[in-house]
């Protein structure tokens, strides 16, 4: 009786092997596959409040989920034509490589190793994050640099373990990592006092704090110890689908820049701003260049609203997480969210 995940990983590796063996290279474009099955298969996080989680009725919501919806709306004309495949951190890349999913939208950090050696391409950045620490207020510490000798709980299969070691080494701290397979186990050990601190991306810390029974007893330390640009990934070898994925994300960002919201989208169709006309397909037809039709961006924006709306609804001021926009503001409002132009 080997561990469940292990056997699942083996199964997916075996699946990968058979899938790889039985498919000729470059068979069927991803777009054709999605259209013929009339469904987008999207790999998401099992449970991360604000990014992807299910409610009591099994409905998915979150930023990563909304991106899948926008993509499905753009390609298939219906935001509900998505099959969500919940994946843990270890399974995610194998699932993408083996073709089990079309796109991986699962708060994944863009790094060189992952971009260069996994047979995948990062589509862009959905959320600029950074790793931080949460501690109990009763510890009475104000900085992560006071964590010398501490035990820190974290979930396995992420970039956090390495960042933690780097931070400890750089600051000559003796920090013991305690690595759990499941996030609930890691937070459980932190809550019980086995670990003095819990570390993950700052957005994840806010999410954990928001669902904790006693949010006021915990504080997030000011240090952000790493850069974690989170974004979706697609398989290599299909540039057409790669381009569609990129530009749907860009359309959501441009939508915010030009003030296109879910509510005002139809009245903006009569706008005489050439930029808006191009995005909504009322003048030039940009969609055909992507292999879609002229309303590709209109449908995406109609389904989920623009990037700002997605942010505020899931993790921002309209959500329990109450995260600041920070770096995730558009470039012309003090952030670094910048989309290349749709033209």
């Amino acid at each position, binding site marked *: 009786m080997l561990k469940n995940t*292990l056997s699942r990983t083996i199964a997916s590796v075996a699946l990968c092997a058979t899938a790889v063996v039985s498919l000729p290279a470059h068979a069927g474009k991803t777009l054709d596959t999605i259209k013929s099955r009339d469904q987008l298969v999207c790999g998401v996080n099992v449970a991360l409040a604000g990014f992807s989680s299910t409610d009591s009725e099994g409905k998915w919501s979150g930023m990563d989920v909304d991106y899948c919806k926008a993509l499905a709306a753009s390609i298939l004309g219906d935001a509900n034509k998505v099959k969500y495949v919940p994946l843990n951190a*270890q399974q995610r890349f194998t699932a993408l490589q083996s073709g089990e999913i079309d796109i991986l939208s699962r708060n994944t950090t863009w790094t060189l190793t992952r971009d260069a050696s996994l047979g995948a391409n990062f589509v862009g950045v959905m959320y600029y994050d950074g790793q931080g620490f949460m501690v109990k207020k009763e510890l009475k510490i104000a900085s992560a640099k006071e964590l*010398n000798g501490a035990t820190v709980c974290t979930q396995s*299969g992420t970039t956090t373990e390495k960042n933690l070691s780097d931070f*400890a080494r750089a600051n000559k701290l003796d920090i013991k990592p305690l690595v*759990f397979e499941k996030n609930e186990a890691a937070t459980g050990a932190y809550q*019980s006092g086995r670990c003095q601190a819990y570390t993950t991306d700052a957005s994840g810390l806010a999410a954990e704090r928001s669902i904790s029974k006693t949010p006021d007893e915990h504080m997030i330390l000011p240090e952000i110890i790493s850069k974690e640009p989170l974004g979706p990934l697609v398989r290599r070898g299909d540039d057409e689908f790669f381009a569609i994925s990129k530009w749907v994300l860009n359309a959501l960002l441009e939508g915010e820049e030009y003030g296109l919201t879910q509510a005002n989208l139809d009245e903006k169709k009569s706008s005489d701003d050439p930029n808006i006309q191009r995005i909504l397909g009322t003048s030039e037809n940009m969609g055909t260049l992507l292999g879609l039709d002229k309303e590709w961006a209109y449908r995406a924006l109609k389904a989920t609203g623009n990037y700002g709306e997605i942010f505020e609804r899931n993790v921002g001021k309209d959500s329990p997480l109450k995260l600041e926009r920070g770096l995730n503001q558009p470039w012309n409002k003090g952030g670094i969210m910048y989309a290349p132009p749709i033209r």
Partner: protein
Amino acid sequence: MAFWRNQKTRGWLYQLAALLLVAACIVWLADNTLENMRNRGIQSGFDFLSQPAGFAISESLFGYESTDTYWRAFLAGLGNTLKVAVVGIILTTILGVLLGVGRFSHNILIRGLCLTYVEVFRNVPLLLQLLMWYLVCVEWLPNVREAEPFLGIYLTKAGLALPWFGDMPVKAGFGIKGGVNLSPEFFALLLGLTIYTASYIAEIVRSGIASVPRGQREAALALGLSRGQTMRLIQLPQALRVIIPPLTNQYLNLTKNSSLAVAVGYPELVSIANTSLNQTGRAVECIAVIMAVYLTLSLLTSAFMGWYNRRSAIKER
């Protein structure tokens, strides 16, 4: 008679052909997988093992630093697996034999307790037991800051700290420095594996003893041996022949079940391999390492138990 008419030779040839076919299939599969991985831009190979791992491990038998290589990290994980497996096998054997023998006790209370133990622990999933022991360890033990030493021993949420040849454990910051330190993760895993496996071993021992003909016991008692002597000198040695083969299975199970440690944060081989897999993306390679290690450990255990079994078998003189 021509040699291909010889049934024995033909038997060998068929087996050889079957073996070659299987080998060819494996080679073809591996080659195809590798080529397709290359085509898709997935890098593969074991070269990553000599790269620095870059992550720390909370406990290790031999000094391991985050700047060490991946293969040192795997070694540290293997060390932790062996540590819990070896200690676990010893403890579970003692506990299991006591429980199995206890089933033959004349004291109804002892008999009943042993039966209850077996039925309870055999029928609750191991993962649940591990989580329960871990919860007991981290919820009920005191915080390091509030803990007072007892004879120099600290038992806290940070684990059990014992003095070691004059090296006394002392509180330092958030943790405890000095002495020998056993973590709650190790404890929970050891406790869970020992108690769970012992319930199976108890049944094996019970059935082994029950298989010894009753006359043996009656004859020993008639000769004037005490009940304890009869068990120790007459019944158990004969029961061993029946006990050892299934006992080997339980030892293998215990070793393999130690991979459940990821649930309670103990950094054994699978946990380390998971982390490495995620940082390097070399899924096939990391899984291959895990499989090779468990296969080797299992074969070694089997070989040792096989030798012990031959030694305790009936020798006809």
